[in-house]
């Protein structure tokens, strides 16, 4: 049995190294999420958000798998992250995943009812048709009895994403991982899908990990946030803390570069430059090459340390407004 102080999923010190590269693609990533919580992982492309999800699911390609280190504790049991056979047992049954592109993650040659039922058949006896029908109804597919026999190309993008959600949730998982579930959708459809995910999560009392680059989606759904940059968690905490009291220069830069729907229109602030490649990864703080506050001390790796009970930041100068007074 899980006790109150061990969360549903705890990812400990995950790192990933490719071949002979001198820097880790991902390093020291620790996350935790409990039932009823939604952890949003935010960051730009290439920061390692999707790799984190694939690692938890045990879906990394063999070439990458060799470089993975770290452990994960799920539902009271420990798993080594480089052991995909152990993870295969819980994948799809206890952990469901929604992929980004509903267009390319459904098989075009099979009817959707069959594809949803397959997720059931993999882990349960029976053909799963009834369960699939029930699930398709639950995710809001109109006339599911008829739609079950449709092929993916007959559905719109929003409907396809609903089918993906049905597949992920048919085994009533304890943890749902959603990798950019609405990025390919229009805003009005995105709003529908976000509502659906949050309703289903509440009714199933799942833990959810949502991966996104959209801070608006984060503000809407998250209870916890982890901001990632270049394969590291740079800031983590409760959603309220992160939005009301952001501390890491990267988080601040991200928030300032968002154009707003309200208030005065000023010139957008930016994060100068671009994400370093693995060959040019700086040795200390990985954000130091783009940080407007970078100093000589940033050549050391800043540890992820707590600034208050529910908030950790990996920056030598946090909180900036106190430690850098008069410098900037």
């Amino acid at each position, binding site marked *: 049995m899980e006790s109150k102080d061990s969360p549903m999923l705890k990812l400990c010190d995950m790192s990933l190294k490719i071949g002979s590269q001198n820097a880790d693609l991902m390093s020291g990533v620790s996350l935790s999420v409990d039932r009823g919580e939604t952890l949003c992982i935010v960051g*730009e*492309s290439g920061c390692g958000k999707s790799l984190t999800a694939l690692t938890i699911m045990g879906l990394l390609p063999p070439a990458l798998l060799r470089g993975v280190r770290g452990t994960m504790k799920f539902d009271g049991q420990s798993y080594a992250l480089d052991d995909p056979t152990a993870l295969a047992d819980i994948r799809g049954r206890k952990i469901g995943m929604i992929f980004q592109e509903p267009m390319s993650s459904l098989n075009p040659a099979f009817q959707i009812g069959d594809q949803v039922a397959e997720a059931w058949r993999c882990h349960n006896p029976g053909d799963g048709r009834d369960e699939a029908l029930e699930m398709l109804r639950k995710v809001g597919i109109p006339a599911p009895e008829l739609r079950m026999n449709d092929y993916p190309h007959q559905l*719109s*993008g*929003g*409907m396809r994403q609903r089918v993906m959600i049905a597949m992920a949730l048919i085994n009533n998982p304890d943890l749902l991982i959603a990798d950019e579930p609405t990025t390919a959708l*229009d*805003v*009005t*459809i*995105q*709003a*529908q899908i*976000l*509502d659906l995910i949050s309703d289903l999560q509440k009714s199933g009392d799942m833990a959810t990990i949502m991966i996104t*680059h*959209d*801070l*608006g*989606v*984060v*503000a*809407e759904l998250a209870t916890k946030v982890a901001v990632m940059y270049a394969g590291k968690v740079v800031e983590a905490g409760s*959603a*309220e803390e*992160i*939005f*009301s*009291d*952001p*501390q890491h*220069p990267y988080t*601040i*830069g*991200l*928030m*300032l*570069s*968002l*154009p*707003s*729907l*309200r208030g005065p*229109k000023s*010139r*957008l*602030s*930016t*994060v*100068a430059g*671009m994400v370093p490649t693995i060959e040019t990864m700086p040795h200390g703080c990985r954000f130091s090459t783009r940080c*407007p*506050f970078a100093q000589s001390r940033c050549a050391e790796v800043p540890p992820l340390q707590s600034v208050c009970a529910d908030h950790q930041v990996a920056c030598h100068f946090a*909180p*900036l*407004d*106190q430690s*850098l007074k008069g410098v*900037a």
Partner: protein
Amino acid sequence: MTVIVEAQDLGKHYPVGGNLLQKGTSLKAVDGVNLKVHAGETFAIVGESGCGKSTLARLLMRLMLPTSGEVIFEGRAIAKLKGAEVRALRKDLQFIFQDPFSSLNPRMTVAQLIAEPLEIHRPNLTAGERRKEVGRLLAEVGLRPSHMDRYPHEFSGGQRQRIGIARALASDPKVVIADEPVSALDVSVQAQVVNLMGDLCDQRGLTLIVIAHDLAVIRHMSDRIAVMYLGRVVETGPTDEVFANPRHPYTRALMSAIPVAEFGATQSRQHLSGEPPSPLAPPSGCSFRTRCPFATEICAQMQPVNETVAPGTEVACHHWRDVSSVSLTIAASATGRSPGAEARFAMYRTALANQDSP
């Protein structure tokens, strides 16, 4: 203000199905669009996928010919132009494409890519002058001129979009049409490109027609805006006016569907149920009525006409008066930022400005 590009009752209908004996139906990708774009302004066209915004952009640019109506550029109907006249038009009307990964030829260097429009539109330049011009254009869009002999794959997405912009500017155009110029880019890079396009418009006095689905980006960039739904313009007006008082139910739904990046700021959602109808079989009357919470009988019978509801603002809705009386508010529960965070934001801005200036 002079009108530089104008669409008059513009339509693009594609024949679908049908055979020798039977007439097919037509897909109205763009239908009865009237627009006026003024010289020097940034005009935005917004809408969801499949609403016809990209088709409209290609019609305005004469990349395709309309099946009805006219596009007028500087007083001339561009559909009738031929040969050399079209080439002259291309010099004045340029296009920035959406996907910086597929719109640049991977086998050409950046210098070749940018020199190509120069060779066509300014043939009297010598090779040396052309190279110098390429360097100047690269510097203008914030890239190092010394990188001109590199290939597109050596650049990141944001840099490639800058190359695309430099190509569009090479012929010194009067109007640039940008089709989703930043939607493929990450937030921080997106902000860099939005700023760059704003600066270029100011410095060169460009007229920019920008197409996007991201309303926040649009609000930031544009002076006037047209909202499209299923091939028709449903609301048009000055950007600030449309954002402050959206009057068409679709515009309001679009705005309230956008998640706001503030904790606790859930908007009073007007969720649209269902999905856009197929453009092959649009609903009778108002095409939005199947998803509209305000729809009544009249909406099924009559197509609404554009009504001027405020200076420069037109709305195509039978019920815009009822719609605009319902207020669209953002819940006051937004937590806002702590004073410490505000101080940090200010420091970031100052530090960034100090970095830029020397």
